[in-house]
């Protein structure tokens, strides 16, 4: 099991509701992929209300990340391999 804390992430939207994070991704990015809850990315399983939007911006993944105590965050994480995997899945 991976831990997002160990990744080189940037927080684009902190401590929000899942809906606010999903809306932020849909509003601010063009290349969006919708995945089911439990989708594995960066060795983590996504938590949220499906379909979960994940955006791609160059070699970065932009995704919602739910923490039990702190709500939902939008994270921007470098990940060329995951970007390619999402594009192939389309």
């Amino acid at each position, binding site marked *: 099991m991976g831990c997002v804390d160990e990744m080189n992430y940037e927080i684009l939207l902190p401590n929000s509701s899942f809906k606010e994070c999903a809306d932020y991704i849909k509003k601010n990015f063009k290349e969006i992929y919708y995945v*089911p809850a*439990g989708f594995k990315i960066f060795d983590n*399983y996504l*938590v949220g*209300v499906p379909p979960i939007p994940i955006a791609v911006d160059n070699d970065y993944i932009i995704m919602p990340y*739910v*923490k*039990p105590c702190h709500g939902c965050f939008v994270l921007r994480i470098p990940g060329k391999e995951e970007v390619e995997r999402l594009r192939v899945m389309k």
Partner: protein
Amino acid sequence: MKALLMMGCPELPVQTAAALYIANKLNKEGFEVTAAGNKAAISLLLNSDPEKHYIRNIMDIDRCIGSLAEKKLDFDLCFVFIHSDSGISYLSTIKSISKAKTIAVIFGKDIEPLIEASGDSIIIAAKAVHNPTPLRAEIDGVKSWAALTR
């Protein structure tokens, strides 16, 4: 029969009390009870039930989500403890990756939006922060959890 108690952040004191209360009822009906939570939620459980009389199996919440998503694990019933939007996200996730019948255990001060967001799950809800009695009364309203698995 297997039941999962999916614990949220333990910032509201009633969560641990309600989890142990539900676990006791499930044990009496012959369920094998597993609890999943973050470090703080698990620590509270282990300190409250050191000999694991009520909850025999304890898992990290991320590992539990992963095992359910990979279909390595599943349950007949899943109780999701909800006092914030994060709890709703976990409930939706469980509904997507598990065959378990879901029970939303909702507590805190502002429970109405959480009840609305819980969809078709069975709902046990009460305004409760420190005093578990109102939530316990709702839990006692269910006479048999095993009946939900039939």
